[in-house]
Each structure stands twice: as structure tokens, then as C-alpha cells.
């Protein structure tokens, strides 16, 4: 009977440790992503001008014009 209780206790501990570890790992991953500026809520930015994903300079899109004016 005692051996059975001990086994149940070990299993409960293992389940608790795994659950806590998963929880910490998940939120550590989210924290790292947010700290690096990869916030998925930043959906207000717009995109323009498509091109190829090659690293070649010739494949980059033409930069959009900007205007300098009195500040």
C-alpha cells in the first residue's frame, strides 16, 4: 500500500514539474519575442512594393519617396 502511495506521489510530482517547465518555457519564449520587438499586435503598419526575397541588391524594391519640409 505504501509503495503504491509513493508511486502515485512520484507521478504527481513528475506531472507538476513538467507542467511548470512547459509553462515557464512558453512564457519565456513569448517574453524573448516581445523584447526583440516582434510584437504580433503591431498590425497597423502597411507594406508596399513587392520584390524577390533574394539577398541580391538588384532584387530589392525601389525605396519609397520621402519629403523634407519645414519642421
Amino acid at each position, binding site marked *: 500500500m505504501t509503495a503504491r502511495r509513493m508511486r502515485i506521489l512520484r507521478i504527481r510530482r513528475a506531472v507538476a514539474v513538467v507542467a511548470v517547465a512547459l509553462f515557464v518555457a512558453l512564457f519565456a519564449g513569448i517574453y524573448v519575442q516581445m523584447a*526583440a*520587438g*516582434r*510584437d504580433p499586435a*503591431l498590425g*497597423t*503598419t*502597411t*507594406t*508596399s*512594393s*513587392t*520584390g*524577390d*526575397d*533574394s539577398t541580391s*541588391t538588384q*532584387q*530589392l*524594391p*525601389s*525605396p*519609397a*519617396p*520621402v*519629403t*523634407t*519640409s*519645414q*519642421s
Partner: protein
Amino acid sequence: MRARLEAGDAFSCFGSTCSVFVIGDGDCGRATHAVGWARRTLHAWHDRFTRFSPDSELSRLNADPRRAVPVSPMMARFVSAAIDAAEASDGLVDAGLLTEIEAGGYVDHLGRGVDLGAALRVAPARSPAAASPAAAMSRVQVADGVVRRPPGVMLDSGGLAKGLFADVLAERLGTHPSFAVECAGDVRVGGTARLPRPVRVEDPFGGPPLHEFHLGDAGIATSGIGRRSWLDDSGAPWHHLLDPSTGRPAYTGVVQATAIAPTAVEAEMRAKAAVLAGPRKATGWIAHGGVVVLDDGRVHIVHARDDRGGTDE
């Protein structure tokens, strides 16, 4: 094959409009993340540097009765830039004229401003501005995160801060293939690919763009008397570019100057100095390239030197 995009965003900030464009990945992650980071950073700097909020760091510095005031690293950089601008412009560009500009009536965000043509018709006789013998900036120092100045000397962030903000953002955005930061009219462009980016110069009289430069890695800024203008209690026209020697608005014969320089804060200093110096000396302040507009609408263009990826057409 995944598409490569130029991410961009335009938003209200500094009582005007700012925009940020980024192509490709870099230290800020993907282009859209870089744009979001730049936008958040500019808004945070606005809250810290606005003189229209008594809780901003700039307002607290200006109101502090101590001679030596500890400041944030970014405020220290701004004060250092303001000191450098005063020295480089022989005192023409003076960020220590806040008392005078507030006495003239510029104490809150301005609306549309006075029509430039109407203001010029009633403005005083034209004459070049000059440095003040008692320039406040000559008594301002910054070292080790502490600003030292006589209590009562108040600083105006103005265009110099906006140029500085564009330059500081460029320190991280410059690791992306291409970027542009337009900070309420002050522009910094760059990137590892050095792609020439069109930069248009606005007409102070409301016409089509006066000129288009193509810049790969440079700062470019415009200063003038057409915006941030108002009428005082007597009906006299005022604007934010003061003659340091009089503490009154400078009417020099130049209504707008655009300057190219290695950094946006230097470009801002050069553009301001060109307006204040008057028509005869204005082009001397835009040696890297730029545009000068006179009262009568005449436009002088100094073509960009191409040693930093700049050309023009």
C-alpha cells in the same frame, strides 16, 4: 518564393507627421517590426521632449532651480547637439531662446499658421540675423549625464531634437538594407544596400515639390518661416526662427532652406543657419547640397555631392 516588402508607416507626432520606411531584416528584426519599434520610440521621445507638458523631462529640466541637473542619456545627447550646433553656426542656431519665443506668444501647439505671403507683406525690413553676445548656449555644459547652466536658461528642443531623433534611430535601422526616417520634416536615409531614395523638397508657397534628390546615406532637413507662425497681440507676424541678437523673428530675405549633411542634426543646423544668414550667405551653409528659397519665390539649388551616395535630378 517569399516576397520582400518595404514596410512603412505615417503617424502624428511632434505636432506634425512622421514616417518610417524599412526594407529587409536587420537588428530590429523584420522590416515591419523595425517600423513599429521606430514609431514607439518616437512617441516616447515626444513625451520626454515636449515643452507643452509640464511633466516632460525637458520641462522639468527648464524649471529646475539647480545649476547642475542630472538628465537621461538621450537628453544629454540633445543638449550636447544643441551646444555643437551653436558653436558650428557661430551662434546663429541658438536653442536657448525659449524665454523669448514664449514671450512672443508661442506657448502651445500652433494651428495652421499665418499665410506666408501675407506675413511677408507686413514683416519688418529684411536683414541678416546675428549671434547674441550674451548667448545662453555659451553658458550651457553637459558631461557625465549632468547638465550645468545658470538657472533660468531654458532650452527649446525644436528642429535640432527631431534631427537627432532621426540619427539615433538610424543607428539601429542602418543594419537593414534600406530605411528612411522622416521626423516632422527632418529626414535620415541609409541602409547597408545604399539604395538611392527619392527625397522631395516641399515648396513653402504650396506649389509642387521644388526639387528631388536621390540619397543613399545622408541626412536632409528643411527650415523656414512658413510654418509655426502666428500674429502677436499687436497683429505683427511672428515665427519660430528668432534672430538671436534681437530675440525677434528673423526676416532675412530667405523663407526656406534645405540642407544635406552626413547627419540629420547637422542638416538641421545648416538649414537653420542658411535661413538666418540671409540671401548672400545662405548657400555657403549648404555646401553638401540643398535648396534655398527667397522671399520673392526665387529658388537656388546646390546640387548634392555624391560622396555619400547622393545625386539629384
